[in-house]
């Protein structure tokens, strides 16, 4: 009995628990107002919409937990997918789709390495550096390469047409399908989970973000881990970028920029601390789910276009207020306890 209570207490203390609660309440409200939220096709639609933001969320999480904000991932995604698609066109490549993904990852890694190099070597704030590199990448993409909307190579088109799950709503006859890219998301989260929780490097990611000096004394190589994180972020961004074009069946160069803000809001909703050292993959998924759910349900609920942004902003503020409130309450509790002891 006691352990159950303890367990409950532990859950209640986690931000993720509260986000989960908000999701539950909101989904019931949406269901009540529209009657369409729990329809199978709507659930599949939300899962589909979550794919790219959730992959980006890993980038944002790794950066925040270990170093600080990374805002360059949308443009790394845009540029690396452009380059890999162009290479596929130039070489008339028609092999398996994942080769294009691998090529994209190589270029993503290079761009991430540029971030990592400047941040680690010169100890510049990651926000400034990634803002700068974003501009550079965007300049290369739209200025030097003059990227335009284009169709995808055959092999990516074939991949995009594959579906993991197709459902049809019995009542309305509306269909929906989950693309294969959902599997990529699942695989990435499993890998990230294993590395973050069961390897020394994974622990190091949290350690260097929590307290750099202690981490260094404990034997973690701060520089190497940070550099590695930005390289990996580049690779993950490339995967997200190609997944995005595979899902829209076109390469759309101007649609990437600006995606970072929603993703960052989502992971902070999910309990990631701006100050570093704290954040979970579970939180990423929940935060992204909450934001995707809200943005994709406002029309369903019948909220006017003009009010939709107000709602999304409200959810972000309420969501991020929760961890702040928690710390405040905890502090107060401690103060009370300290007072009693005295």
């Amino acid at each position: 009995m006691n352990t159950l209570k303890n367990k409950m207490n532990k859950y209640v203390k986690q931000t993720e628990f509260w986000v989960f609660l908000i999701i539950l309440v909101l989904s019931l409200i949406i269901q009540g107002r529209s009657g369409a939220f729990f329809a199978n096709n709507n659930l599949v639609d939300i899962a589909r919409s979550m794919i790219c933001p959730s992959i980006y969320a890993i980038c944002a999480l790794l950066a925040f937990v270990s170093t600080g904000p990374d805002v360059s991932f949308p443009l790394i995604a845009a540029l690396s997918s452009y380059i890999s698609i162009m290479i596929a066109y130039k070489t008339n490549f028609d092999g398996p789709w994942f080769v294009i993904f691998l090529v994209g990852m190589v270029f993503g890694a290079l761009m991430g390495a540029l971030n990592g190099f400047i941040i680690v070597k010169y100890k510049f704030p990651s926000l400034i550096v990634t803002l700068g590199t974003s501009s550079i990448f965007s300049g290369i993409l739209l200025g030097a390469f003059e990227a335009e909307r284009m169709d995808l190579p055959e092999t990516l088109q074939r991949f995009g047409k594959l579906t993991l799950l197709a459902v049809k709503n019995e009542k309305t006859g509306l269909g929906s399908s989950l693309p294969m890219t959902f599997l990529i998301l699942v695989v990435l989260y499993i890998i990230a989970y294993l590395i973050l929780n069961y390897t020394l490097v994974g622990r190091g990611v949290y350690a260097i973000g929590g307290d750099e000096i202690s981490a260094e004394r404990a034997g973690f190589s701060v520089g190497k881990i940070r550099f590695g994180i930005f390289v990996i972020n580049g690779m993950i961004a490339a995967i997200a970028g190609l997944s995005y074009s595979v899902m829209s069946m076109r390469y759309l160069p101007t649609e990437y920029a600006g995606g970072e803000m929603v993703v960052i809001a989502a992971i902070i909703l999910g309990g990631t601390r701006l100050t570093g050292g704290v954040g979970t993959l579970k939180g990423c998924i929940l935060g992204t789910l909450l934001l995707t759910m809200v943005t994709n349900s406002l029309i369903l609920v019948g909220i006017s276009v003009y009010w939709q942004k107000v709602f999304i902003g409200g959810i972000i503020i309420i969501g991020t207020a929760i961890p702040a409130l928690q710390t405040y309450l905890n502090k107060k509790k401690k103060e009370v306890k300290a007072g009693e002891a005295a």
Partner: protein
Amino acid sequence: MKKKLFSVMLVAAMVASTLAGCGSTAETTEPAAEEAAATESTEASSEPAEATEEAAMTDDLFDVANYKSDKDKSEWTIAVITKDNTAAWFKRMELGVNQFGEETSINVIQKGPANADAASQVEVVDNMIDQGVDAICVVPIDPGALEASLKRAMEQGIVVISHEASNLENTLFDTEAFTADDFGAAIMDALAKDMNEEGKYAMMVAYTTSTTHMEYANAQYKHQQETYPNMELINDGAIPTCESEESIDTSYERAKEVLKANPDLKGFTGVASTDCPGIAKAVEELGLDVKVVGVGTPNEFKPYVKSGTITTVKLWDPMVSGYVMCKLASDILAGIEVGDGEGYNAGAEGYEAMTLSQGTNRCLIGQADITLTAENIDEYDF
């Protein structure tokens, strides 16, 4: 040493960001070339007082009769300067310009800036002035940036004609394909025809802050209320139904939501070039029979038009716009009486009797919206 490296890198970043800025303007203006045109014409008409004052001050410069050329027609050169000559939109325009050249055996050249940014375009205009061309027809990237150069051109007696620039001061005439009201009504006519004039429909724009899009949307709704009583805009006539935020993917997701919330929807319009592809994708995936009508370029919309989801595409033809600019320029050089331009006949379909809208400049507006369907879309390659 390190500091030096830093500053170099910072500079590089700044340069890159400026480049990026320019790049993106070019990107967004081209596919949605519709947007600039009609907004500005209405903006312009809202401040006529100021414009007439301007005109009075520099009356000579804007007196069309002063631009009659003494040279023989065969010695004239008309330069057409575009935003970006590599874009499909302007390649299409070049066809019209060349067609004019062949018909009249007047020397015409079409040039665009090396980079699609305002400064490079100014350079091209200056080059043309120095080469001593007789007329400049320009589609400005940023009208403000061109004012000084175009003024200089006019002072040297060069005829200046513009397109999609009703807020440009230093031009003899600006030419537009249509007014926002007419275009919105034309979109509604197309949708009504495809929907058999009855049923519910929805509207998408890029942003509620996109002036042109909202004008098109309002005009659509107004025309529907006046003409098609059996049609109904969902959400009690709220304009617009949703925003695509200039993204095909967002358009797809919003369209899906609208379709889920309104299973009895029969029609959907989208006025940004990103709207219809997203809507069509959603309609096809959900397996619905919804007519999609909207604004966009033929090549991009072709797959959905062929599959029958996008039933009608509305736009104007840059080929004719190019032709009309050249024709007007040559008529002025020849000393043909055009007056203030009211009722001007440019000898091209939709431009037989252009209406004058006096604003920042003299803006001549045609009725040149074109309609693309599965039958004729192959005739347009841009």
